[in-house]
């Protein structure tokens, strides 16, 4: 798709910086991702061969500034931006779905039905993206300004205060005050409990692996019938 005046820009929300992301962006031993991860992400094996490293910009966002600017609370979340620099789809889960919640938490296995449903949701998203890349403004998948604003909640004062606390924590972490940083991460999480970015990032900085450990699963279970990745309405408004 890159020949069609289209570009992916990936942004890693990682306070751990280069050390945290380098093996993901440029694997030392490129190869296939494990099937379990493909199932969780709803990726097709064929399109995810890691034989090559990405040629598009893979940026590192230690301060989660893009999350703040675009009001993102989870990963993967994506925004479509057109040639004039305007948002044509707001921040939304990029093809990800909640199937992972049913998987075996030790083996990370999920049933073939759930895995297939996840792949289907992802495929809908990718097809919509291809349609936009092909047709531009004529695509049925871009949204009207009114619809974008309706789907895009503004930032509240509490959200802004949460972000300020996260930034303070991030600065302390970067200065080597890792324990002190957690006080402000905790305040960010308290002020904006819907941010999985704040939760999982701070857990991971506390202890590697904690972002997908028992605390994570307890928080996911506490959602009850609420979505982790809200289902998006992919169709346009035409």
């Amino acid at each position, binding site marked *: 798709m890159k020949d069609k005046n289209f570009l992916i820009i990936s942004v890693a929300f990682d306070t751990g910086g280069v050390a945290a992301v380098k093996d993901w962006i440029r694997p030392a031993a490129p190869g296939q991702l494990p099937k379990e991860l493909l199932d969780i992400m709803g990726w097709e094996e064929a399109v995810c061969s890691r034989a090559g490293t990405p040629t598009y910009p893979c940026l590192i966002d230690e301060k989660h500034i*893009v999350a703040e*600017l675009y009001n993102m609370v989870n990963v993967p979340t994506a925004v479509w931006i057109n040639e004039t620099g305007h*948002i044509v789809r707001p921040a939304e889960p990029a093809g990800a779905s909640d199937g992972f919640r049913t998987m075996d938490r030790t083996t990370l296995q999920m049933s073939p039905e759930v895995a297939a449903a996840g792949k289907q949701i992802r495929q809908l998203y990718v097809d919509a993206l291809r349609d936009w890349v092909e047709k531009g403004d004529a695509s049925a998948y871009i949204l009207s300004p009114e619809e974008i604003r309706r789907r895009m909640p503004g*930032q509240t004062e509490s959200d802004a205060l949460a972000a300020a606390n996260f*930034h*303070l924590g991030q600065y302390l972490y970067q200065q080597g005050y890792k324990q*002190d940083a957690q006080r402000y991460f905790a305040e960010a999480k308290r002020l904006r409990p819907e941010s999985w970015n704040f939760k999982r990032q701070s857990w991971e900085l506390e202890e590697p692996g904690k972002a997908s450990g028992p605390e994570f699963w307890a928080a996911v279970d506490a959602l009850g019938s609420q979505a982790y990745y809200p289902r998006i309405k992919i169709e346009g408004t035409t």
Partner: protein
Amino acid sequence: MPATVIYGDRPSIVADAMPEGKDLWLSLDDLRTATGWELKPQGACLADTCVPIPAGREAEFLRANDAQFNLAALTRLLGQPVAHDDTHNLWFFGEAASVRSHALLSLQAPDFTLPDLDGKLHALSDYHGKKILLVSWASW
């Protein structure tokens, strides 16, 4: 007392900051160096923007014969969030929710500049003229 003041995403060390509870008093020179705000006859000014000091509330903003300015009072007036750490005497001033929301609701994609793995900086605006899928992920 030395303090680190992060304003507009830029950390500055201020040698003679005077933190008092939720307030942060700075000399006018330090205020300008750390934040860009200056005191002018029309009020506190940052580039072309001036904010009048609310009538009757001068003492919240200015003291010592107008030689010291309370940065925290100004940011409260502007709705900017503040987080501070007393142990390290560190103050972070963020962007107001209304400014962030207004920027987003304009539907003009907010610009940012971030490094890649090699430290090369990329701005979103470098890619103006292309369709862009801006997608987040994380290692965790």
